[in-house]
Protein backbone atom coordinates (compact mmCIF):
# COMPACT_ATOMS: atom_id res chain seq x y z
CA UNK A 1 0.00 0.00 0.00
CA UNK A 2 0.97 3.64 -0.30
CA UNK A 3 0.94 5.93 2.72
CA UNK A 4 1.63 9.62 3.28
CA UNK A 5 4.89 10.22 5.20
CA UNK A 6 5.63 13.92 5.64
CA UNK A 7 5.91 15.55 2.21
CA UNK A 8 5.99 12.37 0.11
CA UNK A 9 4.03 9.17 -0.55
CA UNK A 10 5.77 5.99 0.57
CA UNK A 11 5.23 2.46 -0.72
CA UNK A 12 5.08 0.04 2.21
CA UNK A 13 4.54 -3.71 2.46
CA UNK A 14 3.72 -5.39 5.77
CA UNK A 15 3.73 -9.05 6.69
CA UNK A 16 2.00 -9.94 9.93
CA UNK A 17 3.69 -12.24 12.42
CA UNK A 18 2.40 -15.79 12.27
CA UNK A 19 1.78 -16.40 15.95
CA UNK A 20 1.02 -19.73 17.54
CA UNK A 21 -1.81 -19.78 20.07
CA UNK A 22 0.49 -20.32 23.03
CA UNK A 23 2.43 -17.07 22.77
CA UNK A 24 1.47 -14.12 24.91
CA UNK A 25 1.75 -10.40 24.30
CA UNK A 26 2.66 -8.43 21.22
CA UNK A 27 5.20 -9.83 18.77
CA UNK A 28 8.41 -7.90 18.07
CA UNK A 29 8.46 -5.72 14.96
CA UNK A 30 11.28 -5.38 12.43
CA UNK A 31 11.73 -2.62 9.84
CA UNK A 32 13.91 -3.47 6.83
CA UNK A 33 15.70 -0.58 5.08
CA UNK A 34 17.11 -1.19 1.58
CA UNK A 35 20.15 0.23 -0.22
CA UNK A 36 20.79 3.11 -2.61
CA UNK A 37 19.84 3.60 -6.29
CA UNK A 38 19.62 0.05 -7.66
CA UNK A 39 17.69 -1.27 -4.67
CA UNK A 40 14.10 -1.44 -3.38
CA UNK A 41 12.06 -3.22 -0.73
CA UNK A 42 11.97 -6.20 -3.10
CA UNK A 43 15.41 -7.19 -1.78
CA UNK A 44 13.74 -8.08 1.51
CA UNK A 45 10.31 -9.05 0.20
CA UNK A 46 11.88 -11.95 -1.64
CA UNK A 47 14.54 -12.86 0.94
CA UNK A 48 14.20 -12.23 4.69
CA UNK A 49 10.65 -10.84 4.88
CA UNK A 50 8.48 -14.01 4.68
CA UNK A 51 10.73 -16.04 7.00
CA UNK A 52 10.72 -13.33 9.68
CA UNK A 53 6.91 -13.21 9.62
CA UNK A 54 6.86 -17.02 9.82
CA UNK A 55 9.15 -16.78 12.86
CA UNK A 56 6.57 -14.66 14.70
CA UNK A 57 7.86 -11.16 13.95
CA UNK A 58 5.78 -8.33 12.43
CA UNK A 59 7.58 -7.16 9.28
CA UNK A 60 7.58 -3.66 7.78
CA UNK A 61 9.31 -3.13 4.40
CA UNK A 62 9.24 0.16 2.50
CA UNK A 63 10.79 1.92 -0.48
CA UNK A 64 13.08 4.83 0.35
CA UNK A 65 12.22 8.21 -1.23
CA UNK A 66 13.29 8.27 -4.88
CA UNK A 67 13.31 4.45 -5.01
CA UNK A 68 10.98 1.62 -6.02
CA UNK A 69 7.35 2.69 -5.97
CA UNK A 70 7.75 5.53 -3.48
CA UNK A 71 7.61 9.15 -4.61
CA UNK A 72 10.70 10.65 -6.23
CA UNK A 73 10.85 14.36 -5.40
CA UNK A 74 13.46 16.42 -7.28
CA UNK A 75 15.15 17.54 -4.08
CA UNK A 76 15.31 16.59 -0.40
CA UNK A 77 17.86 13.76 -0.21
CA UNK A 78 19.98 14.62 2.83
CA UNK A 79 20.35 11.66 5.19
CA UNK A 80 18.02 13.27 7.73
CA UNK A 81 15.23 13.35 5.10
CA UNK A 82 15.48 9.56 4.81
CA UNK A 83 15.56 9.20 8.61
CA UNK A 84 12.57 11.49 9.06
CA UNK A 85 10.65 9.46 6.44
CA UNK A 86 11.28 6.31 8.47
CA UNK A 87 9.95 7.87 11.67
CA UNK A 88 7.01 9.42 9.80
CA UNK A 89 6.23 5.96 8.43
CA UNK A 90 6.15 4.47 11.94
CA UNK A 91 3.84 7.31 13.03
CA UNK A 92 1.59 6.87 9.99
CA UNK A 93 1.32 3.14 10.71
CA UNK A 94 0.49 3.88 14.35
CA UNK A 95 3.52 1.85 15.43
CA UNK A 96 4.16 2.41 19.16
CA UNK A 97 6.49 -0.51 19.80
CA UNK A 98 10.25 0.02 19.71
CA UNK A 99 11.36 -1.37 16.37
CA UNK A 100 14.27 -3.58 15.41
CA UNK A 101 15.92 -1.81 12.48
CA UNK A 102 17.76 -3.81 9.83
CA UNK A 103 19.62 -1.81 7.18
CA UNK A 104 21.53 -3.09 4.16
CA UNK A 105 24.32 -0.88 2.77
CA UNK A 106 22.95 2.71 2.56
CA UNK A 107 19.85 1.42 4.35
CA UNK A 108 22.14 0.78 7.31
CA UNK A 109 23.30 4.39 7.19
CA UNK A 110 19.65 5.50 7.39
CA UNK A 111 18.96 3.02 10.20
CA UNK A 112 22.04 4.18 12.14
CA UNK A 113 20.89 7.80 11.78
CA UNK A 114 17.47 6.82 13.13
CA UNK A 115 19.09 5.00 16.08
CA UNK A 116 21.20 8.09 16.86
CA UNK A 117 18.49 10.72 16.44
CA UNK A 118 15.36 8.83 17.58
CA UNK A 119 16.70 6.41 20.23
CA UNK A 120 13.32 6.19 21.94
CA UNK A 121 11.84 4.48 18.87
CA UNK A 122 14.53 1.83 18.41
CA UNK A 123 14.98 -1.56 20.14
CA UNK A 124 18.08 -2.69 18.24
CA UNK A 125 20.07 -1.94 15.10
CA UNK A 126 21.43 -4.39 12.55
CA UNK A 127 23.89 -3.10 9.95
CA UNK A 128 24.53 -5.34 6.95
CA UNK A 129 27.59 -4.10 5.06
CA UNK A 130 26.90 -0.53 6.13
CA UNK A 131 28.59 2.57 7.49
CA UNK A 132 26.84 5.00 9.87
CA UNK A 133 26.55 8.67 8.77
CA UNK A 134 29.98 9.71 10.11
CA UNK A 135 32.16 12.39 8.43
CA UNK A 136 34.25 9.71 6.69
CA UNK A 137 31.11 8.22 5.13
CA UNK A 138 30.22 11.59 3.59
CA UNK A 139 33.54 11.62 1.69
CA UNK A 140 33.00 8.12 0.29
CA UNK A 141 29.51 9.02 -0.87
CA UNK A 142 30.36 12.40 -2.37
CA UNK A 143 33.11 10.92 -4.53
CA UNK A 144 31.31 7.72 -5.50
CA UNK A 145 28.05 9.40 -6.42
CA UNK A 146 29.65 12.19 -8.45
CA UNK A 147 31.42 9.54 -10.54
CA UNK A 148 28.28 7.42 -10.97
CA UNK A 149 26.19 10.44 -11.94
CA UNK A 150 28.68 11.38 -14.65
CA UNK A 151 29.37 7.87 -15.94
CA UNK A 152 25.98 6.16 -15.94
CA UNK A 153 24.45 8.45 -18.56
CA UNK A 154 26.84 7.22 -21.27
CA UNK A 155 25.53 4.36 -23.39
CA UNK A 156 29.07 3.03 -23.90
CA UNK A 157 29.43 2.72 -20.12
CA UNK A 158 26.12 0.85 -19.90
CA UNK A 159 27.24 -1.38 -22.79
CA UNK A 160 30.50 -2.14 -20.99
CA UNK A 161 28.54 -3.09 -17.88
CA UNK A 162 26.28 -5.30 -20.01
CA UNK A 163 29.24 -7.11 -21.56
CA UNK A 164 31.12 -7.54 -18.30
CA UNK A 165 28.44 -7.77 -15.63
CA UNK A 166 25.33 -8.90 -17.51
CA UNK A 167 22.15 -7.35 -18.89
CA UNK A 168 20.41 -7.22 -15.53
CA UNK A 169 23.15 -5.17 -13.85
CA UNK A 170 23.30 -2.93 -16.94
CA UNK A 171 19.58 -2.20 -16.68
CA UNK A 172 19.88 -1.44 -12.96
CA UNK A 173 22.82 0.86 -13.71
CA UNK A 174 20.87 2.77 -16.34
CA UNK A 175 18.04 3.14 -13.82
CA UNK A 176 20.52 4.46 -11.22
CA UNK A 177 21.84 6.96 -13.78
CA UNK A 178 18.31 8.21 -14.36
CA UNK A 179 17.69 8.77 -10.62
CA UNK A 180 21.03 10.58 -10.25
CA UNK A 181 20.38 12.85 -13.21
CA UNK A 182 16.73 13.67 -12.45
CA UNK A 183 17.19 14.49 -8.75
CA UNK A 184 19.68 16.28 -6.49
CA UNK A 185 20.45 13.04 -4.64
CA UNK A 186 24.13 12.86 -5.67
CA UNK A 187 24.81 16.37 -4.34
CA UNK A 188 22.67 16.11 -1.22
CA UNK A 189 22.79 12.65 0.32
CA UNK A 190 26.20 13.23 1.95
CA UNK A 191 25.71 16.94 2.69
CA UNK A 192 23.43 16.71 5.70
CA UNK A 193 23.60 15.83 9.37
CA UNK A 194 26.36 13.55 10.68
CA UNK A 195 27.23 11.74 13.91
CA UNK A 196 30.66 11.67 15.60
CA UNK A 197 33.23 9.16 14.37
CA UNK A 198 33.21 7.37 17.73
CA UNK A 199 29.53 6.31 17.23
CA UNK A 200 28.77 7.48 20.78
CA UNK A 201 25.40 8.76 19.53
CA UNK A 202 24.22 5.18 18.99
CA UNK A 203 23.20 3.74 22.34
CA UNK A 204 21.05 0.72 21.39
CA UNK A 205 22.45 -2.81 20.85
CA UNK A 206 24.13 -3.11 17.43
CA UNK A 207 24.71 -6.18 15.27
CA UNK A 208 27.14 -5.46 12.42
CA UNK A 209 27.66 -8.00 9.63
CA UNK A 210 30.46 -7.61 7.06
CA UNK A 211 32.02 -9.56 4.24
CA UNK A 212 35.78 -9.95 4.73
CA UNK A 213 36.50 -8.91 1.12
CA UNK A 214 34.52 -5.66 1.43
CA UNK A 215 36.17 -2.31 2.09
CA UNK A 216 33.67 -1.69 4.86
CA UNK A 217 35.23 -4.43 7.00
CA UNK A 218 37.83 -1.83 8.04
CA UNK A 219 35.23 -0.59 10.54
CA UNK A 220 35.36 -3.80 12.60
CA UNK A 221 37.85 -2.52 15.24
CA UNK A 222 35.75 0.63 15.66
CA UNK A 223 32.55 -1.33 16.27
CA UNK A 224 34.31 -3.75 18.60
CA UNK A 225 35.92 -1.05 20.71
CA UNK A 226 33.39 1.74 20.77
CA UNK A 227 30.04 0.09 21.14
CA UNK A 228 29.60 -1.77 24.37
CA UNK A 229 26.50 -3.60 23.30
CA UNK A 230 27.61 -4.63 19.86
CA UNK A 231 28.25 -7.90 18.10
CA UNK A 232 30.38 -8.04 14.97
CA UNK A 233 30.23 -10.90 12.49
CA UNK A 234 32.61 -11.14 9.52
CA UNK A 235 31.67 -13.65 6.81
CA UNK A 236 34.69 -15.25 5.10
CA UNK A 237 35.19 -15.10 1.31
CA UNK A 238 32.44 -12.56 0.93
CA UNK A 239 32.23 -9.10 -0.68
CA UNK A 240 29.59 -6.38 -0.28
CA UNK A 241 26.55 -8.40 -1.43
CA UNK A 242 26.02 -10.16 1.90
CA UNK A 243 22.22 -9.98 1.87
CA UNK A 244 21.89 -11.51 -1.60
CA UNK A 245 24.74 -14.01 -1.51
CA UNK A 246 24.58 -15.09 2.16
CA UNK A 247 20.84 -14.83 2.76
CA UNK A 248 20.48 -17.89 4.98
CA UNK A 249 23.34 -16.99 7.33
CA UNK A 250 22.10 -13.41 7.55
CA UNK A 251 18.59 -14.63 8.33
CA UNK A 252 19.78 -16.87 11.19
CA UNK A 253 22.05 -14.17 12.65
CA UNK A 254 19.37 -11.46 12.62
CA UNK A 255 16.57 -13.74 13.86
CA UNK A 256 18.69 -14.86 16.82
CA UNK A 257 19.68 -11.24 17.49
CA UNK A 258 16.08 -10.03 17.56
CA UNK A 259 14.97 -12.87 19.82
CA UNK A 260 17.75 -11.95 22.26
CA UNK A 261 16.84 -8.28 22.19
CA UNK A 262 13.08 -8.47 22.18
CA UNK A 263 12.04 -5.60 24.45
CA UNK A 264 8.32 -5.87 23.77
CA UNK A 265 7.55 -7.42 27.11
CA UNK A 266 9.96 -5.23 29.05
CA UNK A 267 8.70 -1.98 27.49
CA UNK A 268 6.36 0.04 29.68
Amino acid at each position, binding site marked *: MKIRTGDITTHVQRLDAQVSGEEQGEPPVVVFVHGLLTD*SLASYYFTLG*PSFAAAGIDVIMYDLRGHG*RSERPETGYQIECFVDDLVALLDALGERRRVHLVGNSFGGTVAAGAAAWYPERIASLTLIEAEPPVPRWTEHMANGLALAKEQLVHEEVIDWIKDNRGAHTARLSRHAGRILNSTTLADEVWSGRVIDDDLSAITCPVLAIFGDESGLVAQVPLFESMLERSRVVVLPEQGHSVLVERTKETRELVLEWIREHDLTEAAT
Partner: protein
Amino acid sequence: MTTDATGFATAKSPLGTDAGAVLADIAGMLRELLEEYGLDDAEITRETTFHEDLELESIDLVALSGTLREHYGNRVNFAEFVADLELDQIIELTVGQLVDHVVASLRATEAS
Protein backbone atom coordinates in the same frame (compact mmCIF):
# COMPACT_ATOMS: atom_id res chain seq x y z
CA MET B 1 -24.63 -11.01 -8.01
CA THR B 2 -27.64 -13.03 -9.20
CA THR B 3 -27.32 -16.01 -11.44
CA ASP B 4 -29.15 -15.55 -14.70
CA ALA B 5 -30.86 -18.26 -16.73
CA THR B 6 -27.69 -19.04 -18.68
CA GLY B 7 -25.91 -20.05 -15.49
CA PHE B 8 -23.02 -17.83 -16.58
CA ALA B 9 -22.17 -16.54 -13.13
CA THR B 10 -22.01 -20.00 -11.56
CA ALA B 11 -20.01 -21.31 -14.49
CA LYS B 12 -17.40 -18.57 -13.91
CA SER B 13 -17.09 -19.36 -10.25
CA PRO B 14 -15.06 -20.67 -8.54
CA LEU B 15 -12.05 -19.14 -10.26
CA GLY B 16 -10.70 -21.30 -13.04
CA THR B 17 -7.87 -23.55 -12.02
CA ASP B 18 -6.77 -24.62 -15.50
CA ALA B 19 -3.52 -23.22 -16.82
CA GLY B 20 -5.17 -21.39 -19.72
CA ALA B 21 -7.50 -19.40 -17.49
CA VAL B 22 -4.70 -18.58 -15.04
CA LEU B 23 -2.43 -17.46 -17.88
CA ALA B 24 -5.17 -15.12 -19.11
CA ASP B 25 -5.63 -13.73 -15.58
CA ILE B 26 -1.92 -13.14 -15.06
CA ALA B 27 -1.45 -11.63 -18.53
CA GLY B 28 -4.21 -9.15 -17.65
CA MET B 29 -2.46 -8.23 -14.38
CA LEU B 30 0.84 -7.76 -16.20
CA ARG B 31 -0.74 -5.54 -18.87
CA GLU B 32 -2.12 -3.28 -16.13
CA LEU B 33 1.34 -3.08 -14.56
CA LEU B 34 3.00 -2.37 -17.91
CA GLU B 35 0.50 0.37 -18.71
CA GLU B 36 2.00 2.34 -15.82
CA TYR B 37 5.21 2.42 -17.88
CA GLY B 38 3.36 3.37 -21.06
CA LEU B 39 3.67 -0.11 -22.59
CA ASP B 40 0.34 -1.48 -23.76
CA ASP B 41 1.20 -3.87 -26.58
CA ALA B 42 3.41 -6.47 -24.89
CA GLU B 43 2.92 -10.03 -26.06
CA ILE B 44 2.66 -12.31 -23.05
CA THR B 45 3.09 -16.08 -23.35
CA ARG B 46 4.26 -18.85 -21.05
CA GLU B 47 7.81 -18.34 -22.29
CA THR B 48 7.87 -14.59 -21.55
CA THR B 49 10.47 -13.68 -18.92
CA PHE B 50 9.70 -10.92 -16.43
CA HIS B 51 13.11 -9.26 -16.45
CA GLU B 52 14.45 -9.74 -19.95
CA ASP B 53 11.28 -9.58 -22.05
CA LEU B 54 9.01 -7.30 -20.02
CA GLU B 55 11.86 -5.33 -18.39
CA LEU B 56 10.13 -5.58 -15.04
CA GLU B 57 12.30 -5.17 -11.94
CA SER B 58 11.87 -7.06 -8.70
CA ILE B 59 9.86 -4.19 -7.22
CA ASP B 60 7.31 -4.78 -10.01
CA LEU B 61 7.11 -8.40 -8.92
CA VAL B 62 6.19 -7.12 -5.45
CA ALA B 63 3.30 -5.19 -7.02
CA LEU B 64 2.31 -8.30 -8.98
CA SER B 65 2.41 -10.29 -5.78
CA GLY B 66 -0.08 -7.85 -4.22
CA THR B 67 -2.39 -8.14 -7.22
CA LEU B 68 -2.20 -11.95 -7.06
CA ARG B 69 -3.21 -11.81 -3.40
CA GLU B 70 -6.15 -9.52 -4.18
CA HIS B 71 -7.26 -11.90 -6.92
CA TYR B 72 -6.67 -15.31 -5.35
CA GLY B 73 -6.58 -14.50 -1.62
CA ASN B 74 -4.28 -16.40 0.70
CA ARG B 75 -4.35 -19.48 -1.50
CA VAL B 76 -1.44 -18.11 -3.53
CA ASN B 77 1.72 -16.96 -1.72
CA PHE B 78 4.02 -15.56 -4.38
CA ALA B 79 6.48 -14.04 -1.87
CA GLU B 80 7.19 -17.47 -0.34
CA PHE B 81 7.49 -19.01 -3.80
CA VAL B 82 10.08 -16.44 -4.84
CA ALA B 83 11.89 -16.55 -1.47
CA ASP B 84 12.77 -20.18 -2.22
CA LEU B 85 14.45 -19.23 -5.51
CA GLU B 86 18.05 -18.12 -6.04
CA LEU B 87 18.64 -14.64 -7.49
CA ASP B 88 19.57 -16.09 -10.91
CA GLN B 89 16.31 -18.04 -10.94
CA ILE B 90 14.30 -14.92 -10.07
CA ILE B 91 15.94 -13.03 -12.93
CA GLU B 92 15.06 -15.85 -15.36
CA LEU B 93 11.53 -16.39 -14.01
CA THR B 94 8.96 -16.94 -16.78
CA VAL B 95 5.23 -16.27 -16.87
CA GLY B 96 4.71 -20.04 -17.34
CA GLN B 97 6.51 -20.82 -14.07
CA LEU B 98 4.25 -18.40 -12.22
CA VAL B 99 1.15 -19.88 -13.90
CA ASP B 100 2.20 -23.38 -12.83
CA HIS B 101 2.76 -22.20 -9.26
CA VAL B 102 -0.68 -20.54 -9.13
CA VAL B 103 -2.42 -23.60 -10.61
CA ALA B 104 -0.66 -25.93 -8.15
CA SER B 105 -1.53 -23.66 -5.20
CA LEU B 106 -5.20 -23.45 -6.23
CA ARG B 107 -5.47 -27.20 -6.73
CA ALA B 108 -3.79 -27.86 -3.39
CA THR B 109 -6.38 -25.77 -1.55
CA GLU B 110 -9.22 -27.32 -3.54
CA ALA B 111 -8.04 -30.78 -2.61
CA SER B 112 -7.78 -30.03 1.09
